[in-house]
């Protein structure tokens, strides 16, 4: 076999994958019991552009109907099935645990713009180092508090999350939440409520996505 095996996801489901791969290539299961990789063969790996990204996403979303899956990063490919089988065997426990974590759940992305207005007039000069740091501390605190008002209510509705990292200038909030499939509508409603109720905060959320952000480690 020449070319590459382009891999979309790992699963512990026994079902046949639905749909086709990129460029309508047939999907195949690469078995490494109890796991399997879902892949398609290609002469050359795909080139990166917007269209192929959406196409890839569609393939992975179709695979969600198999049951719990771990989506792979875009562009993941191996030369031979043996390499994939070996990897699945080597990281078996890791993948089984991850599948348990995401079973029956989807990922929702949340972005927010927190408009904490810049502070008042510049401080008297010369400014001491202490004053500078204390002012920075105050700014940080206000930003963090505002972010918590968005994050906490949403985390409460989620099985797990990748919390927002602290940001500096940008005042941008970005987080991912692992939500039960049955809870997606309620989650969306809550986002809408927070968007309306919270002052100086604009929130948007996209999803449901396959659980890209929850394939490794643990997060709550």
């Amino acid at each position, binding site marked *: 076999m020449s070319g590459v095996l382009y891999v979309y996801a790992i699963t512990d489901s026994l079902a046949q994958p639905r749909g086709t791969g990129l460029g309508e290539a047939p999907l195949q299961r690469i078995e490494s019991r109890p796991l399997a990789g879902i892949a398609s063969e290609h002469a050359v*790996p795909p080139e*990166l552009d917007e269209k192929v990204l959406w196409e890839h*996403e569609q393939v992975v979303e179709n695979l969600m109907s198999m049951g719990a899956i771990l989506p792979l990063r875009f562009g*993941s490919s*191996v030369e031979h099935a043996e390499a994939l089988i070996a990897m699945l065997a080597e990281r078996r426990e890791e993948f089984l645990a991850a599948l348990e974590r995401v079973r029956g759940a989807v*990922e929702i992305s949340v972005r927010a713009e927190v408009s904490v207005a*810049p502070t008042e007039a510049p401080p008297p*000069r010369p400014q001491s180092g202490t004053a500078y740091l204390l002012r920075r501390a105050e700014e940080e605190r206000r930003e963090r508090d505002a972010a918590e008002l968005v994050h906490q209510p949403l985390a409460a509705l989620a099985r797990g999350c990748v919390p927002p990292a602290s940001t500096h200038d940008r005042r941008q909030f*970005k987080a991912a939440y692992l939500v039960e499939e049955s809870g997606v509508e309620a989650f969306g409603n809550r986002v809408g409520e927070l968007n309306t109720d919270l002052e100086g905060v604009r929130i948007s959320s996209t999803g449901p996505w396959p659980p*890209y952000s929850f394939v490794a480690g643990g997060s709550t």
Partner: protein
Amino acid sequence: MSEQREQMQRRSEEAARRRDRDRDAWRKRNEASRERQERGVSRALRDRDVSLLDLVDRLLDGGVVIHGDITLAVADVDLIYVGLRALIASVETIERDVGISLSAKGPALKASAL
């Protein structure tokens, strides 16, 4: 000693100028966003924008990684940048998860180091 004071004064004046610029930039961004809304940029377009960003975040930054790196398909992107992004992500993770213990002990910043 007065030379030091002069220096400090210059420094804080510079810092103040910077902050003014930041404030202006912040105001400009808000104006731009308001303008977009007034111009009636279609909601469909905005949906697509944020959807694309979130898609890219997930497909290129998330998911299971095999062979410890993005292989083959992302030929356009300099691998140095890939490594940098991973570095930043791990620093953010350290900050988030281990931040407290990092601050317990550690080298203090020395003014002379700069």
